[in-house]
């Protein structure tokens, strides 16, 4: 039997016959494996798009999810709005509840469709294919995040629009650019945290369902979703230091309802800086955690052996 070197394949650039068993000809495995940095980067960027694709298709193909995922937060938001109005609370609190109800969409997406996702991908058999594809797993996580953002943004926008119309919320935005920056920083930090949690769930999660629940209700409470985080007192500073949702929401509220700064926890600039640091930190930690998980998976047989 001759070796590959002695029996080369079709030289690159040569006219391939139209055998459907061949698409991109390469001379031999060495040239096929020798990718340029540009090709490597391009493939990873395409992978981001590829992994976002099923989420975007899913969101558009089965719009029934909107009814459930918008309806439920609207009910909870409405309950808080009615309580605030019955108590005669400042009208800004109504707006706070609406914004909080919208931001839940992103947190739900982060814990259900980011943090728990790799764990579920493993049981489906997708994880092995991601590991053996010539890409970095961060591309897969980024694709998940972008696909998830698409879904969550629709949900959040619908909640804001519906609740604002329903309760006549008056926004007072003086600095649109700052609001956009803070919003994007919040998402970056949130999804960075989701990427980190994805590795950790995979590592420790015997049952991702329970881990997700552990992060759901406590964060609703600590994140100040329906009331300013300041009401938590000095404990709020600790929460703001670890939970991007809490600090992001606080900054968004200050910017969306000008004049309510006294209800905010920290100045918006400080909160923006915290969010930026969190975004970078979580992304770096996610990258490292993923590398650690892959090493562990290969060494101990975890993740790819289903009984483990």
């Amino acid at each position, binding site marked *: 039997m001759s070796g590959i*070197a002695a029996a080369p394949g079709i030289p690159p650039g040569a006219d391939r016959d139209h055998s*459907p068993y*061949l698409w991109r000809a390469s001379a031999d495995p*060495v040239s096929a*494996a020798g990718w340029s940095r540009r090709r490597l980067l391009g493939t990873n960027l*395409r992978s981001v798009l590829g992994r976002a694709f099923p989420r975007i298709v899913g969101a558009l193909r089965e719009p029934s999810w909107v009814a459930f995922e918008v309806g439920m937060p609207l009910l909870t938001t409405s309950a808080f709005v009615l309580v605030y109005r019955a108590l005669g609370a400042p009208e800004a609190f109504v707006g706070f509840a609406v914004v909080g109800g919208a931001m839940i969409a992103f947190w739900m997406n982060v814990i259900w469709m980011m943090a728990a996702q790799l764990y579920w991908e493993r049981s*489906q058999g997708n994880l092995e294919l991601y590991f053996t594809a*010539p*890409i970095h797993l961060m591309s897969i996580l980024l694709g998940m995040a972008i696909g998830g953002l698409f879904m969550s943004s629709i949900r959040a926008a619908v909640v804001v629009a519906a609740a604002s119309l329903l309760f006549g919320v008056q926004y007072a935005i003086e600095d649109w650019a700052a609001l956009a920056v803070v919003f994007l920083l919040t998402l970056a930090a949130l999804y960075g945290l989701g990427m980190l949690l994805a590795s950790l769930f995979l590592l420790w999660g015997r049952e991702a369902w329970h881990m997700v629940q552990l992060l759901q209700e406590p964060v609703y409470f600590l994140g100040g979703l329906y009331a300013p985080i300041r009401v938590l007192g000095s404990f709020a500073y600790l929460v703001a230091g670890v939970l991007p949702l809490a600090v992001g929401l606080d900054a968004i509220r200050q910017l969306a309802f000008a004049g309510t700064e006294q209800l905010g926890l920290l100045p918006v600039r400080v909160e923006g800086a915290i969010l930026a640091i969190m975004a970078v930190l979580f992304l770096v930690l996610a990258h490292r955690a993923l590398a650690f998980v892959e090493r562990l998976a290969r060494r*101990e047989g975890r993740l790819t052996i289903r009984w483990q």
Partner: protein
Amino acid sequence: MATPTFASAIQTQALRRVYAIKPRPVVALDGVDLDVAAGELFGLLGPNGAGKTTLIKILTTLLLPTEGTARVAGFDVVTQTGHIRRIMNMVAGGEQSGYGILTVREQLWMFSQFYGLGTREGWRRVDELIELVGIAEQRDRRISSLSTGQRQKLNLARGFLNDPWILFLDEPTLGLDVGAAREVRQHMREWRSTVPGRTILLTTHYMAEADELCDRIAIVDRGRILAIGTPAELKRRVQQESLFRLEVDRLPGGPGALAALPGVLSAVTAGDADTAADSGGAASIAVQLVLQDDAALAAVVSNLTAAGVHLRGIAKSEPTLEDVFVELVGRGLSEEAPGAGDGEANE
């Protein structure tokens, strides 16, 4: 780092893999030496728990060896994983990868992006592969609605997407009907023959499949390679003995009772597929015998007759790979190794 050389598509030396699980470690591979030449269709034949899937997982960079070395197209599986991932692909039998909400076409396109095909290029390639593997009618159906056979054709198309040089196929015809399995085997042959140097490593426990497809076969059991050769070479190992197939209405004491008789080298019951019922509905048990010579058959028949067993048929057999396996291991290929299965999730 040494420059890779490609005399071998796959090469392992003293490869060992131990799973550190409680209550005791499981040795899944125990000193495997393998050299698969470029362009070969090489088969790993063995029962559940033999170590076949562990070997594939090491070669596809999913697992690290505990000891020894393994190279794919000259690239080291420990230090050059990126290179290996660019030139190989893998397909497993019963694979349920992907997302049920996607159609066949969308699913394949998604995977094409992981291998760097351009957006439009990906769609064109996907359409071509869908036609090729014969699932054109299902192209716009969600993958959750596909039959097992259609699903496996989809998986095979996924395996072809990146024009790999080395294709790892782990029980690719598992659970398929005869027609679908035949088509999958035909695709394997044609894919390989399109470009000289393309290599397939196939694991299977279907002997006929290994016999039909493989240039060479390694018989694996309990993490060790017991024999390597072409199917003809392997079968010649047992050709000097006499092989008989008996059909009886019952078998008191099981095949072990026959194996203890003088001149009988081994006796195993055939698989379920070989156990039939006659026109009256009575069950029939098929037994494969390996005898020192034809004369030993007399003692077997006498023994069965004395036990009141009704002999329904005797036929002299040509040796099969199962006979080789029985001679090497002392049990049938369909019989799981004692204590096996705890080291192999997918075998």
